[in-house]
């Protein structure tokens, strides 16, 4: 019997097509290193190919080759249309347009300051403040905030039928959801005002003086003054921030928005993904699907396959003896080694495949929305690859 590809022996499969057809925003989230960016790009490419309309993928940190495939050269914030020729090379005639944009945190912050600053002088003072430059360039949580802010802004333009968002890797998978609120809170805090007080008025009451003395000794007066100055400037933008934070939050909870959690079946990412799925539901946000990437093929769990593999491993010499006369490219010893090796390799991978299957069946959070994507034998770096992955997400 000739070797052939096998179909996964599964019944009805959940797929993403319905979700992508009915939502305006689909947010891909989950732990790092599981193919979140590629999954978001594949879903968007597939939606553009099959659904029509304008589809935007807003991505954070694509691999260089993926960025090239999407026509992103890594500079700036602007949205760009992925040329239709890219689909042509994959022999697909898209129904709609695929657009792509990358998140540039620094540039987005500057835009935000220009938007919210009450006047030109405040704007320039903020943009040139050393602490601001530090925050916008390096402050990790600011990526989360900016991702949500950009999404809101682009959605508000109404230019796209569907926006697929790839979320930044976070220490805590939920950080980006809280980012707008945290940012607003940050600029309104009572403590913050307390910190600013001595530099606004020289009147420091007796109760708080020891605190300022300690703070002075640790940080130095100049630094504290820089900080205070920065916050005073930023407070002028407070109302804008709070309003935005509320609007972003409403948009996330809106029925037009859905979340997909991307993971692999490895223990650590899966644990994080499950926690994330649960948290989305706790917050009454719409969990559209869980996408499991790099799932090992089902034939690795074939009982007949295991029996054959064991025989090849344990009785390689016997099997090789029967085959060797027909093999022209190697001697009996080589045939024996190859047979033993492929038997052993099958059994090795089988251990992992069975463990993964067990974990998949335990994924009880949303069994009706589980999408499994097989291990692709090569990396995905062009439109054809994205569409191949997209096909898996899309279903039949």
């Amino acid at each position: 019997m000739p070797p052939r590809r096998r179909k996964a022996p599964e019944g009805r499969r959940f797929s993403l097509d319905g979700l992508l057809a009915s939502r305006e925003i689909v947010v891909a989230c989950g732990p790092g290193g599981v193919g979140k960016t590629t999954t978001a790009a594949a879903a968007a490419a597939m939606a553009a190919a099959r659904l029509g309309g304008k589809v935007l993928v807003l991505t954070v940190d694509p691999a260089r080759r993926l960025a090239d495939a999407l026509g992103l050269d890594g500079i700036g914030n602007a949205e760009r249309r992925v040329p239709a020729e890219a689909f042509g090379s994959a022999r697909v005639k898209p129904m709609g347009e695929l657009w792509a944009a990358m998140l540039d945190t620094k540039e987005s912050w500057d835009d935000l300051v220009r938007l919210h600053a009450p006047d030109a002088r405040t704007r320039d003072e903020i943009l040139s403040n050393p602490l601001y430059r530090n925050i916008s360039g390096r402050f990790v949580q600011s990526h989360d905030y900016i991702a949500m802010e950009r999404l809101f802004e682009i959605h508000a333009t109404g230019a796209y039928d569907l926006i697929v968002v790839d979320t930044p890797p976070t220490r805590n998978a939920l950080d980006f959801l809280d980012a707008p609120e945290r940012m607003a809170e940050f600029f309104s805090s009572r403590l913050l005002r307390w910190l600013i007080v001595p530099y606004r008025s020289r009147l420091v009451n007796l109760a708080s003086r020891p605190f300022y003395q300690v703070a002075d000794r640790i940080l130095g007066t100049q630094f504290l003054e820089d900080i205070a100055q920065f916050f005073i400037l930023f407070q002028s933008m407070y109302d804008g921030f709070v309003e935005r934070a509320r609007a972003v939050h409403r948009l996330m909870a809106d029925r037009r928005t859905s979340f997909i959690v991307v993971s692999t079946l490895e223990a650590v990412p899966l644990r994080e993904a499950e926690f994330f799925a649960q948290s989305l539901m706790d917050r009454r946000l719409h969990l559209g699907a869980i996408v499991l990437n790099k799932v090992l093929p089902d034939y690795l769990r074939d009982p007949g396959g295991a029996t054959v593999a064991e025989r090849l491993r344990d009785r390689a010499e016997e099997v090789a003896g029967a085959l060797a006369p027909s093999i022209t490219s190697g001697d009996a010893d080589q045939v024996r080694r190859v047979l033993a090796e492929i038997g052993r390799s099958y059994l090795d991978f089988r251990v992992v495949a069975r463990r993964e299957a067990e974990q998949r069946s335990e994924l009880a959070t949303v069994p009706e929305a589980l999408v499994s994507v097989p291990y692709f034998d090569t990396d995905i770096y062009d439109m054809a690859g994205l569409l191949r992955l997209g096909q898996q997400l899309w279903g039949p």
Partner: protein
Amino acid sequence: MTGPGAVPGLLDRRLLFVTGKGGVGKTTIAAALALLAAEGGRRTLLCEVDAKGDVAAYFETGPTSFTPRQVLPGLSLMSMDTEASLREYLRLNLRIPVVGRIGPLAKVFDFVATAAPGVREILTVGKFCWEVRERHYDLVVVDASATGHIVGQLSAPQAINDLVKVGLIRSQTDWLVDILSDPAVTGLVIATTPEEMPVNETIELAGRVRDETTVALAAVIVNRVLPELFGRGEEQVFEELCRPAIAAELQRAARGDPTPVLDAARLAVTLRRTRATHLERLRAGIDPEVPMLYLPFLFTRLHGVRTIRQVAASLGEELGS
């Protein structure tokens, strides 16, 4: 200890930061390095910076805290807590009665730290440097932040120098820089896997560490390297086995359908080959002076301290100890 100028063995350093992209096994490798050091007779402290509790889970022990706790002979675990670090720092350095007021102070610190990256980082890095200086341990292994944040952490002392002109923190940065900059004392370990994004990030990070920090890259540890299935000439034999006529013979000799086994072998070969190209890219992108260690893919049912022991054993072989 190795004299100045010489390149010390990985575990002969005093402070190792282990970083890596999410999902590559950074925590496992940090834990294995610490275990290997402890088994080699070094008093070792393993500290988790982003307290997710993974380290405790690997050693199958209760939650870790800022106060180190010995879990195996020579091996103590702790987790970083910047507020506790600030408390300790004030107690050791200020020697004035601030304890009652630390609550609000810590909260304000939170704000300051959010505004000025460097403050929180210095409380983290400072704690490790202090443990090194006080010689409480022979080796401190840090399960550090992921690749995105580690440069900020390691360059914090210089960043503080730029922002803070006077004050106690400023006066402390010099000795921190001394410890971090000495390649015989401190090293960075990047954990990675032979896949596209982890390799890209590793190369990029190595460049940034060289350009933006004073910390030496001590090793790159490549995790989950797949075994080579076939030796010279054997791949042709495999190709022949896959031909319909031969496969039919194989089915008779093996007494069953060999298709799943042949498919699986092809998958294994392709995965290995794709990864090999990424490994080549990695080797080309990293300074050849930096040792590169390889850990095999573990085809096991995982988990816990057994996994760590297996990884530690592989690391031990790679380090030649």
